């Protein structure tokens, strides 16, 4: 009896440890396969090299990093203001029942697979951007596959994260701040912009950081609309290749060394994501406690 209970406890512990073991295995295998080429090329040369040309065994991922960052920043610039605005609308304008409906609708956005977003971008957004640029510059050679296309699609994809976390942060602002502001004759808009949003800033900020992590890690939708050209972008209509897109595109035909280089990109991506997610959690913990008085 006692023994079987102990055994059960051990098995259950083992199950809990599977997640941790998986992270360890993931780390070991990604690093194990990517480190050799990092060592050979040199980590600095790998990251700052401006030329990604696997056919000639030249591996510099600066264009890919630039691609990922430009698309991600674009997504934040579009998505964060929209998300906060939606959150204000949800938390402050809509009634409870309508807010619930709206929130479910936004959650539907979160459930749509990224390949569907990519497909939509490919069929609708890219041609639209192509027509738009040609209307402005008749001789523009832009194809529509661009940073802007990636940024717009990603902005839609990170919107649910930003809206739901910001709404929670706004709803968590103590009623007493709202009362104090209104009691002084501030109107609702002033109360929101000057008291409530500042008080909710840690939640809003970490939603943006998490959205950033999601955007930089996103693969399918981005690679279907950004054009996958591994060169440094010159404007928002430039086509770019991202780190994730390059891994997914090239894995199927890569030579062994090329494969190693793709795993090395995985290492860089992994580290960036860890830093972003780690800081989002830290922000939540550090600032989150600071809004309440002792």
């Amino acid at each position: 009896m006692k023994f079987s209970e102990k055994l059960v406890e051990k098995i259950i512990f083992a199950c809990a440890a599977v997640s941790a073991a998986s992270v360890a295995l993931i780390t070991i295998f990604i690093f194990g396969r990517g480190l050799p080429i990092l060592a050979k090329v040199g980590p600095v040369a790998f990251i700052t090299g401006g030329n990604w040309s696997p056919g000639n065994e030249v591996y510099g991922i600066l264009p890919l990093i630039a691609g990922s960052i430009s698309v991600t920043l674009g997504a934040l610039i579009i998505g964060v203001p929209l998300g906060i605005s939606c959150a204000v609308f949800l938390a402050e304008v809509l009634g409870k029942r309508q807010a619930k409906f709206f929130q479910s609708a936004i959650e539907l956005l979160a459930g749509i697979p990224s390949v569907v977003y990519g497909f939509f971008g490919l069929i609708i957004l890219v041609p639209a951007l192509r027509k738009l640029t040609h209307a402005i510059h008749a001789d523009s050679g832009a194809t529509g596959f661009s940073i802007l296309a990636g940024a717009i699609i990603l902005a839609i994809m990170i919107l649910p994260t930003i809206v739901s976390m910001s709404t929670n942060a706004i709803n968590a602002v103590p009623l007493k701040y709202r009362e104090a502001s209104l009691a002084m004759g501030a109107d609702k808009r002033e109360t929101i912009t000057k008291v409530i949003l500042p008080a909710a800033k840690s939640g809003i900020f970490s939603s943006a950081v998490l959205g950033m992590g999601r955007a930089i890690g996103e693969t399918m939708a981005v690679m279907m609309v950004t054009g996958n050209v591994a060169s440094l972008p010159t404007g928002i209509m430039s086509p770019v290749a991202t780190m994730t897109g390059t891994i997914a595109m090239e894995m199927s035909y890569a030579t062994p060394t090329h494969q190693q280089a793709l795993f090395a990109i995985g290492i860089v991506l992994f580290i960036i994501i860890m830093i972003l997610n780690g800081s989002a959690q830290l922000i939540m913990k550090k600032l989150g406690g600071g809004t309440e008085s002792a």
Partner: protein
Amino acid sequence: MNTMKKKAFEIRDMDLYYGNFQALKQLNIDIYEKDVTALIGPSGCGKSTFLRSLNRMNDLVKGCRIEGDIRFDGEDIYAKDYDIITLRKNVGMVFQQPNPFPKSIYENIVYGPKIHGVRDKKTLNEIVERTLKEVGLWEEVHDRLHRSALGLSGGQQQRLCIARCLAVEPEVILMDEPTSALDPVATSKIEALIQELKTKYTIVIVTHNMQQAARISDRTAFFLVGEILEVDDTQKIFTNPANKKTEEYISGRFG
């Protein structure tokens, strides 16, 4: 002597409902300028609810409905075109729990004036100094105006909230049990402050503490289950109440 004073608020036949529940019944009371009016009574008797209808904070409560006539400076504050923002500017409020914003001391005080259109830096600085001096906090905090208000003690926070309220230059200050979250020393400081403030402001204070009402107020209203049983000079209420229930409550037989 009270009949000589001007009336700040005149309340006639006021009823208040939360949905179907009637929380206040047929209230009739006058609140005089530059008086301290204390609202006393057992918990849940409606005194805070009443207080919060004087600056229409009950508008925040869903399903809350008010009937009757509530006049401030002779105007019906529940009239359709009455400007609620001006009302709240003129009728300030201090809450039970000190509720400074999570901003600096300075920012807390200039919040109201800025909302109401004061932009001049010098004027704002003057307001901060004047109001902090009025609440006796200047000496304690003048060297850390730009630190977070949340670093202050509970009593200091409450005085800051009073200063914040004074900064918009109200005529009336509503206080909802302002000392119930404070220790005795901080409480006596706030009480002394109220005595000073009443030379310039009309004060309405809800309190659980009978001695406090007796010490600081000029007039007292006794609430019981949503009704005002008696309202009169504090002296009279505490020495010779007209209503038997009032006497029982004051002498501590229930509540």
